[in-house]
């Protein structure tokens, strides 16, 4: 494991449901070095997706400190809304790639245009994008639209989008959750292969124990869940 890429201390988050305050995450600590991998385990509702959202700035913590890619975000201090928001956006743009279970692609654009769009936003050369689709064995589908390819092919395209931006950290939220076993294994293989090849860090939220076992570290949110 290389230098520390991510450090989280005392992270907490709750949601309001009507008048009720529902705690989701409490006192989360974790550390991840560059090139390392971490599996987030836990049953549905345990806060896996919420933690990923916090780690890429899509949601704000109630408390805790996040240090990622050299940027420090302190949840306990009064919000520096616009400044934090801008820094998080810059991180997501260039350094943090996110893969969801589904709907990672713009439906009105071809697979290639989707990859180009993501790479272009990250400041990468859009001309290299065909090569990423080739590497993920969907080069011949470059001109097709998301609804013209299978779920597995869509997830491969999503991986191509993420790795085309050459991220330092990939956050994957159950990226194989909607696929059949065989396809899921193929997509997972590609994910770990590319992670190893590019040297980026990976945080993977999953129910799948086998998949989690392929990661260097595991964090079971069932054990850290608030009472």
């Amino acid at each position, binding site marked *: 494991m290389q230098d520390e890429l991510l450090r989280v201390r005392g992270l907490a988050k709750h949601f309001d449901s009507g008048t009720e305050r529902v705690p989701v995450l409490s006192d989360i600590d974790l550390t991840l070095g560059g090139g390392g991998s971490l599996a987030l385990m836990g049953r549905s509702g345990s806060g896996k997706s919420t933690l990923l959202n916090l780690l890429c700035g899509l949601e704000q913590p109630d408390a805790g400190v996040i240090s990622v890619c050299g940027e420090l975000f302190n949840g306990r201090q009064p919000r520096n809304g616009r400044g934090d928001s801008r820094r998080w*956006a810059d991180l997501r743009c260039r350094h943090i790639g996110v893969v969801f279970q589904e709907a990672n692609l713009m439906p009105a654009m071809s697979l290639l245009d989707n990859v180009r769009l993501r790479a272009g936003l990250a400041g990468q050369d859009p001309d290299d994008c065909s090569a990423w689709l080739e590497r993920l064995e969907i080069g011949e589908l470059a001109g097709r639209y998301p609804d013209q390819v299978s779920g597995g092919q869509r997830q491969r395209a999503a991986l191509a989008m993420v790795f085309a931006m050459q991220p330092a950290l990939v956050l994957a939220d159950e990226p194989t959750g909607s696929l059949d076993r065989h396809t899921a294994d193929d997509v997972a293989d590609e994910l770990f292969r590319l992670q190893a090849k590019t040297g980026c860090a990976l945080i993977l939220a999953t129910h799948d124990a086998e998949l989690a076992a392929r990661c260097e570290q595991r964090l079971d949110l069932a054990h850290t869940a608030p009472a």
Partner: protein
Amino acid sequence: MKLFAALLSHYRRHPLQLLALAAMMVVASALWTGVSHLTSQARASLGQSERAVAERAQVERVDGMPVTVADFVALRRAGHCVMPWLEVERPASTGRVVGIDPLAAACFGQPAESYRGWDQPLNGESFLDIREAKNLAAAGDGARATLSLLLSGPPGQPALPEAYRRAPFSLGPDTGELGESFLLNLDALGVLVLLITALLLRSVHQLGLAQRRDSFALLHRFGVPEPAVRRALVIEIVLLAAVCVVPGVALGRLLAGGLGSGFGQALESLFDVPLFAGQGSSWLTPVLTMMAVVLAVCLADQLHFSGRQVIRRLAGQGYRVTLLTLVAGLALAFVSSSLALTFVAIALVFAGAGVLAPGLISELARRCGRASAAPLTRWQCAEIGVLARRLALPLVALQFALAMVLAVQALVTVFEATFDDWLSQRLAADYFIEVPAGADSLAAADWLETQSPLAGSGRWHRVVRGRAILPAVDGWPGQTVDLFALGPVSNMLGTWRLQAAIDAPWEAFSRGQGIMVNEQLARRRQLSVGDSLTLALAGERWTAPVLAVYPDYGRPAGEVLIHAAQLPAGFRPDGESFAISPDTADLDAVTSGLKRVWQTETLSLRDNGRIRALADSVFEQTFLLTRSMTVLTLILAAMALLIMGWVFFTTRVWYYRLLAVWGMGPREVAGQLVRLSVTLTMSIAVLALPLGIWLTWALVHRVNPQAFGWSLPMAVYPEFWFELAGLSLIIGLSIAALMRRQLRQPAAMPVSASGLSGGER
């Protein structure tokens, strides 16, 4: 019942969709009811005013003396229904009032069945009890009072005593032709509003159905037969329509009442007849019409009719058929000789333009996207294409509304300008003084020229009205035209706008070197300046060159203007009057001088300034009304696009969140939304522009001439274009602002990729 509950559960989860559909039904019903109600009201009011002007009569003394209270008593004792009408002219700040006697008016309240001109109560603001009017006149603050005796009953019944005669009693100008044209355009506006509301209703309903496609599929998998789902949907829409249409109609009537009351008051002032807003069409017609429209547009897909296959086959031909429809409509509008065909042509052009517009935007976006190397631009273009396809119906409705506003604004402005010119021409002089029957107009003219305060001023002229015959010559059939003989040529005539003329036409006219003709006659006989025209006057043929063609502002009859000195001795005029503008001269000195010349105690003096002010107020109100209705239509179309954009965006917000996930700041994402929505609304505004200009042309040059035989001048007003562009910008920004609110909420991931299909490419 369980099926129905399952279907309705969709709206429990998506109340906004139900609200959108219900709101659209209510607002659409209100708008169309408002327009149709106002049209029927305006038609009733104008008809009433025309009848009143045509049917009102007064009693005059045969000896030319003014009528007095003694005459009133004599006539009432003789059993005639007469009513005293004391008109008190006060200084400008206080205006005119009319004193009437409610007791004497009682016999006007029970007219014969066949005579309906007086069956309205007299309670207008300017009416007072005759005693109060008399007191005002006696107050000595410069007020001038004139007593008239109004006569009830149709002409000839019963015969008046020998000392009296029946005479018309009219204070207003004849606005019938312009009014009819206005009403026709209001009718056309009503049809367009109905079309736009139908489109909006269908768009909201179709979007709702698309959102429920997965639910229907689920029900089908659970074994519910398709016809049962269809039946439940029919019941659902019937119930919803029943709940929403009636309040919509009520709202429309309220709207029409508010807008129409001003219109009615203005007409009251002009015609001195109380005309009430709120009368007119019943509840049943708008309710049934809107129910029919709602059911037709929402359930059109459920119907199985024989023409459906044909329509599908035609639809399969896509843009070729649409283009053909558009071209056929344009061609038909050029060649059509009947009003019905012209309306068919307008319908074809709108249908073609409506189907083409979203496709055109989408295709242009696709081409722009392909031409660009920038990934973000390609995404923007792709997204514009999706929005244009998915929001096609509300966009087309907005396009129609914009085109309609453009046309109506241009038309109303042309009407206003025309009406203003018409009044300027007809009422160029400050006063008209009618020559009493049997009086010597030449003696009066001689007095005015030599001894009156107006002598040598050029501020008066004599007008002789009559008829002339154009004999059949050179293949032209014989024709009777209106004749106006003027002389001397006063300064007022110099203000007339002439369409074509020789140099110094009025000088040549005053020397009797030719005649002038109106636009209608020039068109019909293909007359140009310099052509000769032969007239038969009092049995004598007379040929003279055309010195000028003057605009007739909608008057369909042919007119010839000759110098009064050219009239043959045997010519029998229909009427004579003097047009005078006293300026600084003493009007009373002029009128008393004329009374002396004609040896009469009374003069029929018409104040053109007052008539002009009254006429202006009527038309200002009607134009305001038209503008209000078109702007309301536009607001409805904009609201529909907002609602549709909102509902549609709920299905798409995830993809805009993806942009944020990919590193775009909230402001940048919002900026993208603004760019997309503004591009969309501005594109539709650009496409509405040619349609609006064409509609203006069709109304001015095709509909009006075919309906009334005359044409208004065609004019376009680029400042309206900029106003509409500004409005489209505001609509686009509003949509973006609404969508931006949704971005603040966590977005739900689309359930499945299949949910993405439809309109994406």
